Every structure is written in C-alpha cells, then in structure tokens.
C-alpha cells in the first residue's frame, strides 16, 4: 500500500492551480501531482511516486553513495578471501 516507485519527470504543467507533470517509469508514463515537491524539482529529476503523488525528489548523490557502500560491503568477503589467499601465497614463497 505504501508502495512508491521512482520515475523521471518528463514535463511540468499546471492544472487549475495544481502543479502536475508527466513522469516516466521505465517506459510507462503517468500524470503525477507534483505539488509536494514543486519547489525542488525540475524536468529530468527523479521522484518517488505514491498513488499519483510525488512524495520526494530522489537524491541522486545519496543514491550513488548508498550503492557504493552496499557494493563495498557485499564484496568485502570476497576481498578478504583473496587477501587470505595472497597471504598464503606469500607465506609459501618466503
């Protein structure tokens, strides 16, 4: 029920005093109410949309940072494992 989906703003307009716009969700386009993010978004920005309303602007920098953290965390096991191997190899050669 609280599902929110990220999409990209394609255009903005005004519907009798209400900020609205078209948002593209990976190819599917929908009319969305932009009233709650009107001051911070422009065409090209990503927003999280819930029941036809944009409830936040996706912070692309933070999204990138989270993803990098996740990637590092998920790969560390592998790196440690490789480091162990490297240590072992060194042990053999020395």
């Amino acid at each position, binding site marked *: 029920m*609280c599902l929110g989906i990220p999409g990209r703003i394609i255009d903005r307009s005004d519907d009798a005093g209400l900020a609205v716009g078209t948002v593209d969700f*990976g190819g599917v386009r929908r009319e969305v109410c932009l009233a709650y993010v009107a001051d911070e978004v422009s065409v090209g920005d990503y927003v999280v949309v819930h*029941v036809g*309303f944009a409830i936040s602007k996706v912070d692309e920098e933070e999204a990138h940072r989270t993803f990098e953290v996740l990637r590092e965390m998920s790969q560390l096991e592998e790196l440690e494992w490789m480091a162990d191997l490297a240590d072992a190899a060194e042990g053999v050669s020395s």
Partner: protein
Amino acid sequence: MKYLSEYRDPAMARGLVQRILDTATKRWTLMEVCGGQTHTIVKQGINEVLSNAVEMIHGPGCPVCVTPLVQIDRALHLAARPDVIFTSFGDMLRVPGSECDLLQVKARGGNVRIVYSPLDAVEIARRNPDKEVVFFAVGFETTAPANAMAVWRASELGVENFSVLVSHVTVPPAMVAILEDPGNRVQGFLAAGHVCTVMGWDEYEPLAAKYQVPIVVTGFEPLDILEGIWMAVRQLEDGRHEVENQYVRSVRREGNRPAQDLVSRVFQVVDRGWRGIGTIPGSGLGLRSEFASFDAERKFGLEGISAEESADCHAGDVLKGRLKPFECPAFGGRCTPESPLGAPMVSTEGACAAYYNFSRVQADVPVGVAS
C-alpha cells in the same frame, strides 16, 4: 529501471547476508512495520536465510489489513446505494466485511470503481454531478498527503458531491502499543521508508530512547532491507539504540514539509480502531471540522453501523508478532487468499498471504489441521 533494479542484485544480496550472519553473535528479534517490506522479506526468503541471526516479526504495517471491520461494512453499505459511485484503491476490494466484500457488491450492480489516485475520484465527482462520489481514504502517513489533497481540491473547486470515508492510521502509536505490550519480544525496528519520506524521523527519536530500541528507516528493495537489518543488528551488537536512516535517497530528517502542512490542515489526530488489535489512542487521522461536509460518515449517517470481528481470525496476534501466520489454526485450511477469513490473507502485503504465497517454512507445519 533506474533506482530500482540495481537494488535487487543477487550477488550483492549474498554478500550482505553473509555480513549479517557474521555480525550477529546471538539471534535478535526485529520487526518490520511496513507491509511492502513484509512482502519482499517473505518472497525473497530473507527471513529464512537470516534465521540464525534474526527472527523477523511482521508488524501491523498493511493499512488494508488493519482497516477495522466496521469501516469495511460502512463502505459496503455506501457502495450498495444506487445514488453512490464508490471509489477505492484496488487492494480494498477483496477485504472481507461482515457479509461480503466490495467486489461482490460490484457484481450485484453496485457502482464501485478502482482509482489510481484520489484526485481521480474528485474528477469522477466533477463529471457526475447527479451522483454522490465517495472515496475510501485508507492508508498510513504515506497516503495521507494524497488523500488530504483530494479533500482540499474538492473544497477549493466546490465539488459538493464528493466525500471521503476515512480510515487513516499512523505508525508511531502502533509501535508504542507493541512496545508496551507485556508479551513484547521486539528488540529493534525497521521503520517504513515511505512513511518517513513524508514524516521524517524526528518522532521516532523519543521512542528509540525511551524503549531502548534501534530504529532504522529502511527502503523496500531487497538490498535496502538487508542493509537496514544489518544496521539494526550492528546497533544491537554495540548496545546502541538510535534512529538511523538507511533510505537516504528518499528520506530527509524533516520529511516532506509541504505534505505535512496540508495533512495537518485537513486532518486531525483521532483514536482509531485497528482490525484484530482494537483501538489505539491517537493512532488515526480524521477530518477537521472545517471539512465536515466531506465526511461520508456524517453525510450518510453511518455512525449507527457497528460490527463484531470474527473470533476465528487471529490477525491481532499475527500483527503483533505473537503468532506466525502458519500457527493460526485456520491458515491454509479455512483461510486462503481465495477465501480469506481475515484481512492479512487478502492483501499481498498481509503477513498471512505472504506466507501462503511464498514461504517454504509452512511446508514443515501441518497446515490447517486444527480447523
């Protein structure tokens, strides 16, 4: 799709699972509050792969599931009226009332329409001036700004044939009810990312401090949930109890102020009944008196309708985490998604339906034998 599919990477998920298993020195009990998270956790088997490190309890985070029976009965009553066009989000249509559901009323000729946005319901009212258009305004804080806007808009445009049947609920009072329960086992929470997108997380800080529980604001994709669990487990291992934000790409500390402003102009805090749980003080939103003319309960005199919840359904214990869905005697026998006894079996975000559809755990349990 950007900002979606990359958070579903299976290789990264495996790495995170290993992290959590390595971090936990004992088995912790966490509750996710949001039904969308429940769906992902059970569907992806996150609860199963992590079962040595965490037990996930699925909280009362599905507004469809907790809408009280009496409000469903009122909706059914309205939808059956010939002068009414009853509009609702699709997930409410199969929620069982005392006698039937909205889908059955529709089949018998009731004018029931599914809308994508509450503003669509206002539009239907403008196009059908000879009908009364009622919108079933359910949901958590995430949905309240949309529903508030529909009422505000109808009021601005003078759409007098529009009204809302309100059954809004809010998350923090439900968390308090769970924490205050003498049988509580929850040691940490994943807070719902979109609720906090709207509300921010200020109101969770006193809870984390008072009850000494970590609360991690968490997104909805598998990697978000795994990172949220990892952050909560790390806090528990360190003996910390703070509010942390995993879902930084959408949630700011202060939330969405314009949305909060309109919600508090249109709605006020009221006591609200939760299906299967009972009344939780201050846990709901109702229309302010300035908007009383948009209140369907008043407009159609529905206050007299009351309802008795079935004793067979253990939704209350499931929603509070006292019972796993498959421990309910009716699970999978008398209660299935095709013929649900209680609301958690109706919505795909409900804990019972999630276990019925996806879980492999239930196979070990003799389902429905006691029914």
